[in-house]
Each structure stands twice: as structure tokens, then as C-alpha cells.
């Protein structure tokens, strides 16, 4: 029973890291990316092939195989994902309107899927990678124990990334991103070129995605193209929008409830005989919830909370202008 909960929490944390990263792209900066999961996949693959040894199983082929320590592989995964995102940013983000950007990013995701599937020397094609070494190395440990270890690791990393998000949000950098998001003409007119802050946030968000991917693969010790179908990006985006884009609480809510909660619920619920059906019902629920949220509560379940921060931070303002007190929400 404990395993069920820790498993849930680990996967929830990993998904939360992804959505927190996506929140940086879409919530903070308003950059739409329908292929965010690509960065997760890259992070996973790189972490896997740098921590595994050379291929030993007959018929299995992949690059690298460097047997690096798990945390090095993890960080490498994040860095490579970030590097790829720079390339994509350079080609697309500043040049395309939202619907074209959507098409281009999904097309890129399909290409990645196709290439990885077909070009087996890269990541062993459709069969994928197995036996990725656990972070506990040679220690013999039970699945429950490993879950707990991974839970600790992922929770710490999630907390770190949430802290980074908060710092960004409360800083002039965050304010500038919000300004660009709301009306770029205004921020440009006051001396701020848009591309640099956008590129930075893009890189940071993609790095987080790569780390999430690495953690994922270190946890389940296998990875293949079936794990990063383009639809996954849509699920991430949906959970961010439903949870509340523009803030990390909403992101985490979306991740835990929409992605994890619904998935686990349908997986363990005995009512559904056919497992594929459970997945389908979950997707339908997400689709309906998404449309309802967009229609009736577009800011999401937990809206952007700048007001609260300003109330706290504007203490001295209230002191100076006592008349303000009645207007502070």
C-alpha cells in the first residue's frame, strides 16, 4: 500500500517538474510550445545513454554508453535539452504567430519520433532502452525502498525548481516577461528587446523538462518512443491550463491532479475491464475539463497571484498612504 502512494507521489513530482517548466514557457512568458515533451524525451535519453554502459545485449544499439554517475547524466540531459531548445527558439519563436508555431513544434516532435524510431544506432529505435542503472547503484534495495529514495530526490529537485520559479516571478525579470506577454509593443517602446528574456526563460524551462525526463528514466529504468508521443505535450499543456497557468501552484495542482491523479485513478480502478478504455476516459475528461476551463475560468483553477505578493511587498506603501489600506484586496 505504501508503494502505491510513494509511486504516485514520485510520478506526481516528476510530472510537476515538467509542468513547472512549461509554466515558465507558457505561463510566465506566453510562449506556446506544443512539443514541450520533446525536451523531456531528450533529457531521458541522454541521461540513459550516459549512465548505461556500452550495449551488451545482442541487437541493442545506442550511442555513448559512458557509465557516468547518475547525477552527471541527469544534468547532461537537462543541458542537452536546453541546447536543443536554443536551436528551436532561434528558428521559430520570434518568427511565427501562434497557430503556425503550434504546427511547427508538433511537426518537430513527429520528426523526432520518426527519426528515433527509424535510426536505430541512436537510441535503439522502437525497442528502446532497458536496464538503465538506478541511482542507488549496486546497493540491493526493494522497489518500495527505491521509490522512497526517488521520492526524496524528486521532491528536493521540485522544491528547488519551484524556488527558482518564485524568484523569477518576483523579480524585475519576471515582470519584464509578463510585460512582454501582455503587450510587446509597450516593453519595446521602453527599451527592452524581447528576444533575450524570452530565450532565457525558454532555456530554463527546457532544462527543467530535461531534468524531469532524466528523473523519469532513472526511476522506471526504461524508455522508448511510446513514452513520448506528441499527445503527451498536449496533456502537459492541458494540465497547466486547468491547474492555472502563470503560477507554480497551479502548475503543481495540474500535474498532480490532472496527470497523475486521473491516470492512477483509472489505472487502479477495477470498474474498467479494458485498460485502454480507462486511458480513453481519462483523455475525454481532460478534454472536457480543458474546454470548460477555457470557457468559464480561463485563468485556471489557481490564478496568477501577483496581487497577494504586492500586498505583502507593498507594506511600506500602505504605511505612507493610509488611504490605500481600504483598497488593498
Amino acid at each position, binding site marked *: 500500500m505504501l508503494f502505491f502512494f510513494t509511486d504516485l507521489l514520485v510520478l506526481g513530482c516528476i510530472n510537476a517538474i515538467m509542468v513547472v517548466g512549461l509554466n515558465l514557457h507558457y505561463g510566465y512568458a506566453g510562449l506556446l510550445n506544443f512539443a514541450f515533451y520533446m525536451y523531456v524525451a531528450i533529457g531521458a535519453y541522454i541521461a540513459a545513454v550516459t549512465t548505461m554502459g556500452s550495449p551488451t545485449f545482442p541487437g541493442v544499439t545506442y550511442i555513448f554508453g559512458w557509465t557516468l554517475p547518475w547525477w552527471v547524466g541527469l544534468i547532461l540531459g537537462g543541458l542537452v535539452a536546453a541546447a536543443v531548445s536554443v536551436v528551436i527558439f532561434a528558428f521559430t519563436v520570434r518568427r511565427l504567430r*501562434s497557430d503556425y508555431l503550434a504546427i511547427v513544434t508538433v511537426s518537430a516532435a*513527429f520528426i523526432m519520433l520518426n527519426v528515433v524510431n527509424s535510426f536505430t544506432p541512436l537510441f535503439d529505435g522502437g525497442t528502446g532502452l532497458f536496464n538503465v542503472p538506478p541511482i542507488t547503484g549496486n546497493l540491493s534495495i526493494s522497489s518500495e525502498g527505491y521509490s522512497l529514495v526517488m521520492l526524496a530526490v524528486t521532491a528536493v529537485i521540485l522544491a528547488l525548481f519551484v524556488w527558482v520559479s518564485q524568484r523569477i516571478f518576483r523579480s524585475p525579470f519576471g515582470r519584464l516577461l509578463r510585460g512582454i506577454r501582455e503587450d510587446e509593443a509597450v516593453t519595446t517602446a521602453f527599451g527592452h528587446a524581447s528576444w533575450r528574456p524570452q530565450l532565457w526563460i525558454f532555456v530554463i524551462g527546457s532544462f527543467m523538462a530535461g531534468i524531469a525526463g532524466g528523473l523519469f528514466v532513472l526511476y522506471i529504468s526504461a524508455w522508448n518512443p511510446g513514452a513520448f508521443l506528441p499527445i503527451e505535450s498536449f496533456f502537459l499543456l492541458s494540465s497547466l491550463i486547468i491547474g492555472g497557468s502563470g503560477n507554480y501552484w497551479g502548475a503543481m495542482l495540474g500535474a498532480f491532479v490532472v496527470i497523475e491523479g486521473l491516470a492512477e485513478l483509472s489505472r487502479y480502478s477495477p470498474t474498467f475491464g479494458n485498460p485502454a478504455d480507462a486511458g480513453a476516459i481519462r483523455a475525454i475528461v481532460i478534454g*472536457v475539463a480543458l474546454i470548460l476551463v477555457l470557457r468559464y475560468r480561463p485563468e485556471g483553477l489557481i490564478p496568477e497571484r501577483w496581487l497577494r505578493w504586492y500586498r505583502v511587498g507593498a507594506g511600506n506603501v500602505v504605511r505612507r498612504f493610509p488611504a490605500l489600506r481600504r483598497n488593498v484586496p
Partner: protein
Amino acid sequence: MARLIEAVGFGLVTASILALAAVAVSLQVSVTNFINFAYGDFLTFGAYIAWTTAQHGVNIFLAVLLGGVATGLLGIAANVFIFRPFMRRRVRTVTLLIAGVGLSFIVQNGITLIWSTEPVRFNVTLGNSFNIGPLVFTPGDLLMIGAAVGLLALLHVMLSYTRFGKSLRATSNNIDLAQACGIDSDRVITITWFLAGLLTAVAGVGLVLQEGTLDPTTGFVELFIIFGAVILGGIGKPYGAMLGALVVGVLTEVSGMYVNSAYKTSIAFAVVIILLLFRPQGLFAGSSKTS
């Protein structure tokens, strides 16, 4: 050389299928100004309806027609319950895009629930392949091309000579102006959704006949190739979409000859990306719907 011409022949078949779907998308985009991400799943839906009715012994042509009508109704429902309320509130394009994604979840997984993920086949054999000069066709291929040409010709007649066609062109040009002239743009939009659904379903059946099997994801994967054809021809320009489909269809088949066919999809997507990056207004110059 003979192989090349053969590939062109296959390309024509692919192009016919694409043309129907691409024209459908272009029509809908031209009057509503956003791209519906659930279109691929409309394709799948139409194919499944046709398949189910054919399974019950209905004549294949009637089955396709029923599939078309059902998809048309689906399109109308999507408009009435989802897209029109959003458009009335003048939301951002992004919102409509994401709503389309939500709709795609619903349709694709609704299909999965009803029909399961098992791939199915149409039990139709339409004769063996034969040669017309250097080209190789099956009767089914010719039928597909014929159907495409026929339907598009009908569409052309409708657009150019009927009152509805004129209303549609006016609405796509400038919706406010059209409304000011007394055109009921809501009705135009509703009928356009129906027509688009109809065409899409026929394309869906054609796709299944070409690919061989049908499963809930069939249409979604095809969606971006369809977008490629639409963009090539100029978004919102149905006639351009026909030409775009021709180019994409032939190119895909021909390139499959020179490059390992496993990468055929990647090439198609790469073409889409390059188009959008460097020539989003399409290959054919002139005024475009894009802003």
C-alpha cells in the same frame, strides 16, 4: 524513370485524398479564421462511421455518404457547442487552438471507447491493379481520383455560381462587411462546417483504403500533412489547397523513392516546417488570408 512516373501516379492518388481534406480545412479556416486541431479526428470519425455501416452490409458508396453526413453533423455540433461560443467572445487564437486540442482528445478517445484500438480493415476489393501506360492503378485508385475530382468540381460550381457560394466567399473575405450586407454569416459558417465534415469523411475513407488499416489515431497523424498542403496553397484559399495537395502528394511519393521510406513522414513534416518558416503565405503569391 518508369519508377518515377509510377511514383507520380501514386502521388496522384495521395493528392486526391489530401485535396479533399485540405480543401475542407481551407474552407473552414477561410470563414472562421482559425485552425481546428481536431480535424484529423474528424477524418477518423468519418472513416469509422463508413466502416461500421459497410460492415452491416450497406453498399460502400452509401456507407461513405453516411460517414460524410455524420461527420458533417459532428462539425456542426463542434461549432455550436465549442467554437462559436468562443468566437462570440472574441478570444485569442491560442484559446481556439487549445479548444481544438481538447476536442481532439474527446473525439479521438470517444472513438477508442466505441470501437477499441484494434485496427480494422474495409472488406472491399475493387479489382486488381492494371496499367495505363507507365502508371499503375487499381480501380479503387481511379475511383478515388474520380471522386475527388468530381466532388471538387461540384464544390467549384457551388462556390462560383450559387448564392450560397457567393455568401461564403463574401464571409471569408470580410465577415463584418458580409453581415452588413445582410448575409447570415452564422448560417454560412454552419453550412461550411457541414461541407468540410463531408469532404473530410470521404478523404478519411480514401486514406484508409490506401493505408490498409484504420485505428483511432489514423487521422491525427495525417493532420499535419494536410496542414502542409493547406499552407502550401495558402491558408484559407480552397483552390490553393487543391494545388498544394497535388504538390505534397506527388512529392511525398517521389521522395519515398530516393530516401529510405521509413523517413517519409519526417520529410513531409520537414517540408511543413520549412514552408511555415520561410513562406507562410504559400507558394502562390497574391493576397492571403494570413495576417
